[in-house]
């Protein structure tokens, strides 16, 4: 089973990297960009287990290490 985890900055947390990307897009002449927020994408291959067990494991890894709850949110999906 594979977990696809997305980690994003919370609303209201400044994202200087997102701003720099936005500026670079503008420099490339790509118009119509109103805002850019960047984050992380992590794939985790899990040993075969029940979906409930996998959810519990992924929740724990996100809370304990992958995301910092002060500034980040996480979401994930499980795929077999």
């Amino acid at each position: 089973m594979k977990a696809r985890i997305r980690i994003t900055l919370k609303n209201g947390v400044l994202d200087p990297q997102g701003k720099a990307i936005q500026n670079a897009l503008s420099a490339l002449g790509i118009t119509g960009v109103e805002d850019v927020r960047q984050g992380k994408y992590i794939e985790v291959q899990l040993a075969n287990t029940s979906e409930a067990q996998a959810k519990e494991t992924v929740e724990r890894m996100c809370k304990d290490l992958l995301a910092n709850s002060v500034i980040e949110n996480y979401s994930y999906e499980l795929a077999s």
Partner: protein
Amino acid sequence: MLRASVVVFPGSNCDRDVQVAIEKITGFPVKMVWHGDASVPPSDLIVLPGGFSYGDYLRCGAMAAHSPIMRDVIAKAKAGTPVLGICNGFQVLCESGLLPGVLMRNASLKFICRDVTLRVDNDQTFFTKCYRKDQVVKLPIAHAEGNYFADQETLDRLEGEGRVVFRYCDEAGEATPQSNPNGAQRNIAGICSEDGRVVGLMPHPERLFELPLGGADGRRMFESALVSVLEPMS
């Protein structure tokens, strides 16, 4: 007798500087402790040094905060052992939950390496009692992630409890936007735990602890630790 331990993570690069500073200032030998060890020897204070622990993977300090030695550092800190986190060490303290908030990417996105002026806001902590409140000191910063962030409620609580230890300021001691090098909330450069025994700061006191280095304003931080350790005995 002062028993100081410095934790060495893979990627630490200010560990030897701190060791030299403490040994020269206090005259007592320092123990270096490897991150993979299960425990820190009995210590009067523990230092988490600057550097790039674990290559700054995931988030600065995030991997180090979960290394084997940190379980014991956290337990000892909670039992009252003073801990000083400098630069990457401050990031590790925040990631480990010993101090609130987080150090984010500098607002300029640039790695900043230069001297800054700081105002001492709390001269009562274990590591700052040899400074005077509102004293302006010069220390170097060298980081890309020193932009202190916490939610407004946490910031208000830190201020209310006098737990902001150092603030970036101008020569006159005013914490102005222009004197804020990295975008830190409320110009915060360093904070402490409720009991003032755990202190984290982005600037490097060990890099300016004697005049041949270009300044000696960092010296008092280590003198403070010595005074704090010896005080109960006097």
